[in-house]
């Protein structure tokens, strides 16, 4: 087990007060707080070793490049990537997913990329529980190419309808992109099943691991998908950086996305050739200071141990589900048992709008999120305008869950 009290001391913001009461931060699925080591890593790079990377032949350039490329090694280890050059830095996971969607549509006019072409008659499959960042890019790809956009529906418990997996993913499917752990429902999806079905029909498989990366060990070799992405700010790292991992053979043939400095091999006015991955997909000045800060976050998590993180959060989640069940009129949206679910719990309360709940909890120092959590189709599916969502992290204590329950009861009293 991990020592939460020790961990909490590493996060400066957790000593803050809000409205005169100590902060209870239950919005880590939205974005996680940062340990001091992450803040320091970025500051130290700027104060001591800063310069642009790759292009420079001077000492500072070599130090900054070293820090940046070391971060790539750290990420590769974190997800057990077979090669470091399979790790691409983006600005967030949204960019990573759009990168894939645009590279695929670029294939239509990019010599040698025929195998990636998507067009009329083909289809692209997501799930009904996707975050907008893994939904809109594919709708836009369908719009650009004439392919069909499809989704695998979810059942009343917030799980994928298993029978629909084989039905929706068919011989004409080119891409299957799905969330590992849902940010709106907490559901953990059957990754192996989805990847296997994608492979069976020859489709590319893409895992949105934004909500998985902070909570459970990731092993891209074991998962078996073609691509996996996550975002820095949710793994206790900085904003402004995300990660796309892909199989090298695929990255090596995929057309470029953003054009610019450092993604080229040679440029002339008559035409341009492109660098090998990962640089081909990293146009312009990258997140130089954010990369070592992300590495610091990953090192921090790795020192705790992702298995310990999972265990801690499973305990908190089970406790929270039990306690929430005691609140009158409260309905969990998503799996209401700890099985195959993560530390993110959405709910509604009879007669009180989620925005009111969240606001009144905030007045008691408790930060939760209310809304459709960038997954509006989920709300549509359950016929509700929004949910309230409490989400936990490595620093969450049972006492904070108790504060949430007490807060909810107080809200009910006010609206009573």
């Amino acid at each position, binding site marked *: 087990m991990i020592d939460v009290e020790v961990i909490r001391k590493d996060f400066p913001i957790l000593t803050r007060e809000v*409205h*005169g*009461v100590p902060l209870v931060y239950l919005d880590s699925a939205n974005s996680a707080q940062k340990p001091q080591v992450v803040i320091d890593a970025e500051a130290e790079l700027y104060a001591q070793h800063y310069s642009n990377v790759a292009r420079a032949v001077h000492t500072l350039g070599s130090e900054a490049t070293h820090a940046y490329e070391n971060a790539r090694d750290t990420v590769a280890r974190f997800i057990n990537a077979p090669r470091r050059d399979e790790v691409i830095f983006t600005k967030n996971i949204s960019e990573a997913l759009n990168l894939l969607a645009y590279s695929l549509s670029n294939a239509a006019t990019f010599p040698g990329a025929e195998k990636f072409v998507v067009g009329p008659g083909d289809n692209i499959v997501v799930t009904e529980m996707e975050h907008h960042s893994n939904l809109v890019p594919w709708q836009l790809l369908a719009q650009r190419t004439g392919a069909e956009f499809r989704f695998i529906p979810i059942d009343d418990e917030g799980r994928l309808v298993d029978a629909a997996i084989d039905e929706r993913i068919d011989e004409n499917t080119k891409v299957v992109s799905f969330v590992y752990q849902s940010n709106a429902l907490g559901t953990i999806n059957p990754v192996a099943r989805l990847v296997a079905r994608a492979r069976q029909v020859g489709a590319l498989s893409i895992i949105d691991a934004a909500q998985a990366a902070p909570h459970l060990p990731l092993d891209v070799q074991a998962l078996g998908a073609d691509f996996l992405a996550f975002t820095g700010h949710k793994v206790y790292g900085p904003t402004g950086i995300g990660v796309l991992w892909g199989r090298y053979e695929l990255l090596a043939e995929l057309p470029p996305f953003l054009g610019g400095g450092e993604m080229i091999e040679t440029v002339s006015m008559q035409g341009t050739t492109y660098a090998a991955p990962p640089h081909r997909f990293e146009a312009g000045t990258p997140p130089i200071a954010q990369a070592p800060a992300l590495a610091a976050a990953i090192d921090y998590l790795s020192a705790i141990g992702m298995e310990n993180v999972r265990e801690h959060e499973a305990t908190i989640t089970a406790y929270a589900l039990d306690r929430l069940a005691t609140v009158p009129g409260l309905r969990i949206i998503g799996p209401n048992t700890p099985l195959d679910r993560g530390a993110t719990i959405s709910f509604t309360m009879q007669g009180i*709008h*989620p*925005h*009111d709940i969240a*606001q*009144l909890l905030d*007045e*008691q120092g408790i930060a939760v999120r*209310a*809304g*459709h959590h960038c997954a509006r189709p989920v*709300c549509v599916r359950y016929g509700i*305008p*929004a949910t309230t969502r409490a989400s936990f992290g490595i620093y969450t204590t049972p006492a904070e869950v108790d504060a949430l329950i007490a807060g909810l009861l107080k809200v009910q009293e*006010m*609206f009573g």
Partner: protein
Amino acid sequence: MTASMESMYQQIILDHYKHPNHRGELEDFDAEVHHVNPTCGDEVTLRVQVRDGEIADLGWVGEGCSISQASTSVMSDLVVGAPIENALALQEKFVELMQSQGNNTLSEDEVEALEDAVAFEGVSKYPARVKCALLGWMAMKSAVAEAVGPASPATEEKS
């Protein structure tokens, strides 16, 4: 309840939420509008009746949080019976209040004119909720514009 809790959820707001005014469908009306706040799903359908340059009557139905519902109720109280000009001036002041991010610079007179609507000042610190507070007011403005606008010559006859 902490002091700021009170500031945000003043009794005024909760009262209006629990007992909204002018809620209901108007039978005789000059314009109807339907406004939605896509980020949170709040919605309101609002009808107005305009007579002699005044908002003679107004009725609304809607779904949403206490802020949007109470704000629409407060707004209705303020504008029903008021000259259109005054209603729109109030609307502008309310928008200003909501965009003040907690530091309003309204004069005392202006504050007085807004009556119960001043209870929403605390909302202005929460960008995500400003739209809730504005929903009914924006709907009123659109409905009045439609009722009197050049696009609606029918209204001309009535005035």
